[in-house]
């Protein structure tokens, strides 16, 4: 889409054009579905709520971020609200503190699972474990990991979507990545041993 087309599309969206809105939903709903599913473990009504809120709020959308980033912000807020309604225990992580490498590295497992065959790394059992590992992350880490690494938003877009600083995004991202790596290292350890003994 050229800048001109983008501007026309936005004007149509903001004036309540249903066809333009349908196009927006068509183009972004897979991403929003994935984001909701990865934060919640399922998508519940987040998808519908996100677009209903977006449609109402479009006339006041100021374009300070891209529409996609703005939709992600709404979806993340909806998903977090849903988690709170379910009363999932919250684990707080103080992200105002700089990354403490000593604290994070104290229990790093050294298992080189890169050598495992793809079918082992991506078996249905492994995928299930990976899903569960994401769900075990505190919300603050999970939201950053989902937006940055799974949805491919930039550091700046992730910061805009979550309304936190870029430094906080970076700190949370590193913590999330290290925790997931650690979980996978422990999970794959036995398989690596088996592979070595072949």
């Amino acid at each position: 889409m050229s800048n001109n087309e983008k501007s026309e599309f936005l004007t149509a969206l903001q004036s309540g054009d249903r066809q333009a809105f349908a196009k927006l939903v068509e183009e972004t709903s897979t991403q929003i579905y994935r984001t909701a599913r990865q934060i919640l473990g399922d998508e519940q009504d987040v998808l519908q709520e996100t677009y209903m809120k977006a449609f109402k709020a479009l006339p006041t959308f100021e374009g300070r971020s891209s529409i996609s980033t703005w939709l992600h912000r709404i979806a993340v807020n909806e998903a977090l609200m849903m988690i709170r309604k379910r009363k999932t225990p919250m684990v707080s992580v103080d992200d105002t503190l700089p990354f403490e490498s000593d604290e994070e590295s104290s229990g790093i497992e050294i298992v080189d699972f890169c050598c495992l065959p793809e079918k082992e790394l991506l078996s249905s059992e492994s995928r299930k474990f990976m899903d569960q590992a994401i769900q075990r992350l505190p919300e603050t880490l999970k939201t950053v990991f989902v937006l940055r690494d799974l949805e491919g938003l930039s550091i700046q877009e992730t910061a805009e979507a979550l309304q936190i600083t870029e430094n906080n995004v970076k700190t949370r991202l590193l913590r999330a990545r290290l925790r997931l790596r650690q979980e996978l290292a422990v999970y794959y350890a036995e398989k690596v041993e088996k592979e070595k003994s072949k």
Partner: protein
Amino acid sequence: MSEHVHTEKCSTMLGDLSDYIDGNLQAEICAQIEEHMKTCDNCRVVVDTLRKTIELYEHCSDNVELPGEVKERLFAKLEIKDYLSTVDSPK
């Protein structure tokens, strides 16, 4: 399975890992990390497996599609079902 006994250098490197993996680190610091990994096998494994972790998650995420019935329900709820077949496919 072994546990990483890290030195001060390893700890410093850990804080820069995300930026290193994403290619957002200054060339000079990248060179220091690469030099360190030549002699620290544990750190090399951490870097490789961290990269692999992200790659595996990306792969699984890319394969998640919006189920047809969820999409239909969404378009019905938003009252845009009439446009479902007429909108351009995403590029």
